[in-house]
């Protein structure tokens, strides 16, 4: 330890009393009312920067590859112009739809791995003793963690995708303009406001639909001593295997697999419609809300969360 540190320590730990204005201030009157939920969410973002770095980094890569292929854009544009209207629209929309898909999948994976570590990491590094020394209830702490995959990640996903699509479109306009071509089809054939609305609806319904999955991952995170990923995967797999051996059926695994597909429950997709752009008319909130699977899933999620909160109360650092 350096002398400087010792001196500083002596000053902190020494005899000097705090100045009277500090002590005599009004220590009882907090500057603001406590906001445990808000700060608990902030703290998750401080710790898990991958929540926003991963989608942004992938978004950056997408833009780079888009720029790298920008030279081919006029040629592709001319090829698209030769196609029929429907195919032309698909050809133009493809990069935008792929961008949205890639970012959405990355965000989902980030959300899964966040959940698996959310309650495990704080027990592993014993920092849970610090968090529990503050007036934040286990309920608040767990709900803050749940809000990351259910609110924060979808919000980041939405903003990232819309921003990327906008930048790509502006870049296309510039590139085409430099080549003396009109960018009008990019703006008319790929309807950004409509796509953004559909995207928003898809992200919201997906977050709600996935609640039991996030609940399960948080529960494993609060319960397992190690290997959260293996437990999270192999317990459902074990149930499926037992079912296959004992009942010779596969209902459980079908049910779980089906619950990864929120699109089918939230949209009325026309299988004959070949367009890559989902029309607004396919949005089916009534069907979504009327689905028993949604409500059973939410009930299961609530049970998982209750168990998670109890485990956070009872479990000691690892």
């Amino acid at each position, binding site marked *: 330890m350096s002398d400087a540190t010792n001196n500083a320590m002596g000053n902190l730990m020494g005899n000097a009393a705090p100045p009277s204005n500090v002590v005599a201030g009004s220590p009882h009157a907090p500057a603001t009312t406590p906001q445990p939920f808000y700060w608990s969410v902030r703290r998750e973002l401080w710790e898990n920067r991958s929540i926003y770095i991963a989608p942004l980094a992938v978004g950056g890569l997408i833009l780079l590859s888009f720029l790298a292929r920008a030279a081919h854009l006029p040629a592709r544009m001319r090829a698209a112009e030769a196609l029929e209207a429907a195919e032309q629209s698909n050809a133009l929309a493809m990069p935008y739809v792929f961008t949205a898909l890639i970012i959405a999948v990355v965000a989902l994976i980030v959300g899964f791995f966040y959940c698996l570590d959310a309650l495990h990491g704080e027990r592993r590094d014993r920092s849970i*003793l610090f968090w529990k020394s503050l007036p934040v209830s286990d309920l608040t702490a767990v709900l803050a963690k749940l809000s990351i995959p259910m609110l924060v990640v979808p919000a980041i996903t939405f903003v990232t995708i819309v921003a990327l699509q906008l930048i790509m479109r502006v870049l296309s306009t510039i590139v085409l303009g430099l080549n003396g071509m009109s960018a009008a089809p990019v703006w008319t054939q790929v309807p950004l406001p409509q796509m953004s609305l559909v995207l928003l609806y898809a992200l919201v319904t997906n977050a709600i639909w996935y609640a039991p999955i996030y609940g399960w991952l948080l529960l494993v995170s609060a319960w397992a001593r190690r290997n959260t990923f293996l437990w999270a995967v192999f317990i459902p797999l074990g149930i499926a295997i037992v079912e296959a051996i004992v009942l010779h059926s596969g209902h459980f695994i079908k049910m779980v697999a089906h619950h990864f597909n929120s699109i089918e429950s939230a949209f009325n997709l026309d299988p004959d419609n070949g367009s890559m752009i989902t029309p607004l008319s396919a949005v089916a909130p009534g069907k979504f809300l009327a689905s028993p699977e949604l409500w059973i899933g939410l009930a299961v999620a609530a049970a998982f969360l209750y168990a998670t909160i109890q485990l956070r109360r009872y479990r000691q650092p690892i």
Partner: protein
Amino acid sequence: MACIEARGLRKTYGSKVALDSVNLRVEDGRILGLIGPNGAGKSTALNAILGLIPYEGELTVLGRNPWTSRDQLMRDVCFIADVAVLPRWMRVSQALDFVAGVHPRFDRKKAEYFLARTDIKPKNRVKELSKGMVTQLHLALVMAIDAKLLVLDEPTLGLDILYRKQFYDSLLNDYFDRNRSIIVTTHQVEEIQQVLTDLMFINHGRIMLDCSMEEFEARYMEVMVLPENVPAARALGPIHERQVFGRSILLFDRADRQKLATLGEVHTPSIADLFVAVMGTPAQAAPPVPYGTPPPVILPGASR
């Protein structure tokens, strides 16, 4: 109202009894040292007081049930579990932001004032700080909270001697007053002897000794006697005897001070020496005490 009150506090882990019907009472404005060997039940007792574990029996901390209302209790209670619990990824400024954001009794200016006297910078991450600096940071956070009870579980473990000494000086000078209470567990008992107002020994989940430091100083006496005086001294009923440099040091509980003074110089024993006397003798120490049963003041599971 007592700061902490426990009746029949009991905690078992499987077949292991960590706390065995403990009764205890800590008044406001006290500094209690909870001393015991590893696995004696110190941390279990503190964890129960802090609402970190469920328990059997009755326990009230500042009028609240710690297990059912930990989050409310933590407005009035601070604890430093050990030096390693501040999250390593956290920046100092983030720690200040977070505590200020969730704690109604945190005075950020005060914490910043304490930190300004150290080498810790707001941009530092906890993992960049030395162990001593992490303790400074944690202490600065805790001392800026206007709490009624501060619980310290081995707060100076792994710190060098300068930090240890200054840790307690700082607590006494900048923090402690008659409205607050502090409970501290430590193995470095010699460092806190002058700090404590109350002393408690715990072993095998039971309280072996519970007294104030005034009582401790009035009751326990230690005399170093020459070999020829040993039989006379032994006749007065010491609770412990050990050999140092060919002389015998005998420890007495409630003996006649004047009689002892004729045998040698009488002084107050260290907590460590009393601890050895009460908790039993390590193998290499003094010969077994040949005198009767332990004195009645040291009752297993006793309380005031």
